[in-house]
């Protein structure tokens, strides 16, 4: 038996935008075991419900994650709306869908760049982020922020987008879609990308389900599960299907995200075509009393928001289960048996967002 060596990976590592630590037990160059540890960036956001009232918590929820911020805010608002039995106007639901999908596109483009950087394709990284910058401009123009949208609100949304702007945005998005296709074609066909990703980090369908994988990690292993099919916001009124790949490797997970980009573009076009006129919010009176689990699909997978109110302005309990937390056990499984140089690539395929995970 070869001598075992333990190599620490993280919390500070060039491929990791956020701190997670892995102890990699190696036999020669082969990883035989990966032991994760988290806890470097805990901020105690769930405890804040005792100090902030339930309307102010929307701002806190949006800041749980810097990349999928809008969907965090939306999930929190949906939970409170369900507890308080608030009917959100139709137009607000469509606007939430449009911003939610924009958030998904910018998150996936960011990830594609980071992934390219992870296997050393620096120019592909730059090009992915150049495309993303164009989308961030649209987001800033419509919401006022580049990544923290600040438009989620209990009872609707805080801003409206007028019809001429929506039409113009659609045109700009079509240009961005064209630019994205050139980038995703490289991920799909380039020989150097395929050599680093095909057959690397295998996660079988059975393991993905048993270990509770979510989002593109689960769909890359052939399971068609997408929380948007639960029918929140305007998703039931839009034609779309979850993107599923059956490769079970890093390439399949990358392809899920590439194809989801186009699914999201298509959803935004449909939402712009179908958006009804009307108000964008309703007045909220009283305090929440009761409890609710809100489940939504983030770019990284399913997020669960649990809120419990006791008819006071502060919630009694607030709990968030983020997608990266669910994807850590599948990651440990994927790392077993891989080569050391493949570790960064595999870690990136779950799209780790540690700040969400630790809240």
């Amino acid at each position: 038996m070869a001598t075992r060596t333990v190599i620490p990976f993280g919390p500070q590592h060039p491929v990791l935008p956020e701190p997670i630590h892995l102890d990699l037990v190696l036999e020669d160059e082969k990883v035989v075991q990966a032991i994760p540890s988290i806890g470097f960036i805990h901020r105690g956001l769930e405890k804040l419900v005792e100090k902030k009232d339930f309307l102010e918590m929307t701002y806190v929820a949006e800041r749980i994650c810097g990349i999928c911020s809008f969907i965090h805010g939306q999930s929190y608002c949906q939970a409170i709306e369900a507890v308080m039995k608030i009917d959100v106007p139709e137009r607000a639901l469509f606007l939430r869908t449009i911003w939610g999908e924009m958030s998904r596109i910018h998150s996936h483009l960011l990830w594609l760049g980071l992934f390219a950087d992870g296997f050393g394709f620096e120019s592909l990284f730059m090009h992915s982020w150049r495309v993303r910058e164009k989308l961030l401009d649209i987001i800033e123009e419509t919401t006022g922020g580049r990544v923290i949208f600040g438009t989620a609100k209990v009872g609707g949304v805080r801003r409206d987008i007028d019809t001429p702007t929506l039409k113009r945005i659609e045109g700009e998005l079509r240009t961005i879609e064209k630019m994205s296709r050139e980038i995703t074609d490289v991920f799909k066909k380039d020989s150097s990308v395929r050599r680093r990703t095909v057959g690397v980090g295998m996660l079988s369908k059975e393991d993905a389900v048993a270990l509770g994988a979510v989002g593109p990690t689960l769909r890359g292993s052939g399971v068609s599960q997408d929380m948007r099919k639960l029918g929140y916001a305007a998703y039931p009124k839009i034609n779309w299907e979850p993107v599923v790949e059956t490769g079970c490797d890093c390439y399949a997970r990358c392809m899920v995200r590439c194809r989801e980009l186009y699914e999201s573009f298509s959803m935004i076009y449909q939402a712009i075509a179908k958006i009804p006129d009307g108000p964008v919010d309703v007045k909220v009176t009283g305090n929440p009393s009761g409890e609710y689990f809100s489940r939504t699909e983030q770019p990284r997978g399913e997020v669960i928001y649990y809120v419990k109110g006791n008819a006071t302005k502060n919630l009694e309990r607030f709990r968030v289960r983020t997608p990266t937390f669910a994807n850590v056990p599948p990651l440990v499984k994927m790392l077993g048996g891989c080569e050391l140089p493949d570790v960064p690539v595999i870690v990136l395929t779950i799209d780790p967002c540690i700040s969400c995970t630790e809240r």
Partner: protein
Amino acid sequence: MRPLSFGKVISRSVLSRPATRLYPFVKRPFFKATRGAVAIDIDKCILCGICQKRCPTAAIIVTKAAGDWQINRLRCISCGACVDACPKKCLRLENMYSPAVVKKGADDKVHQQPKPGLGATQA
């Protein structure tokens, strides 16, 4: 599998202008909707203190007795909750960010007092 699949994008990038700007000579224009810094039209302000109550980060302090409206720029998250809540509509979100400060403390606080002759002063 196709080698050099990136050739088209690369060659176009080589021949076109840089995607970046020559900052600080060329500045990026902000959008009208950009949430920058909170500004106040202090003469319209009645010092009711609603903005202070609504601020999720406790960045605004209103002292009615001293006639003082104060914002801590480093605490402010530019969410616009105060702007939405203001009954006199004297608060607004400007689309420029507040200037950088060299140290925490006095530099990051802005006082405004609605008294004739005093105007806006930076403490």
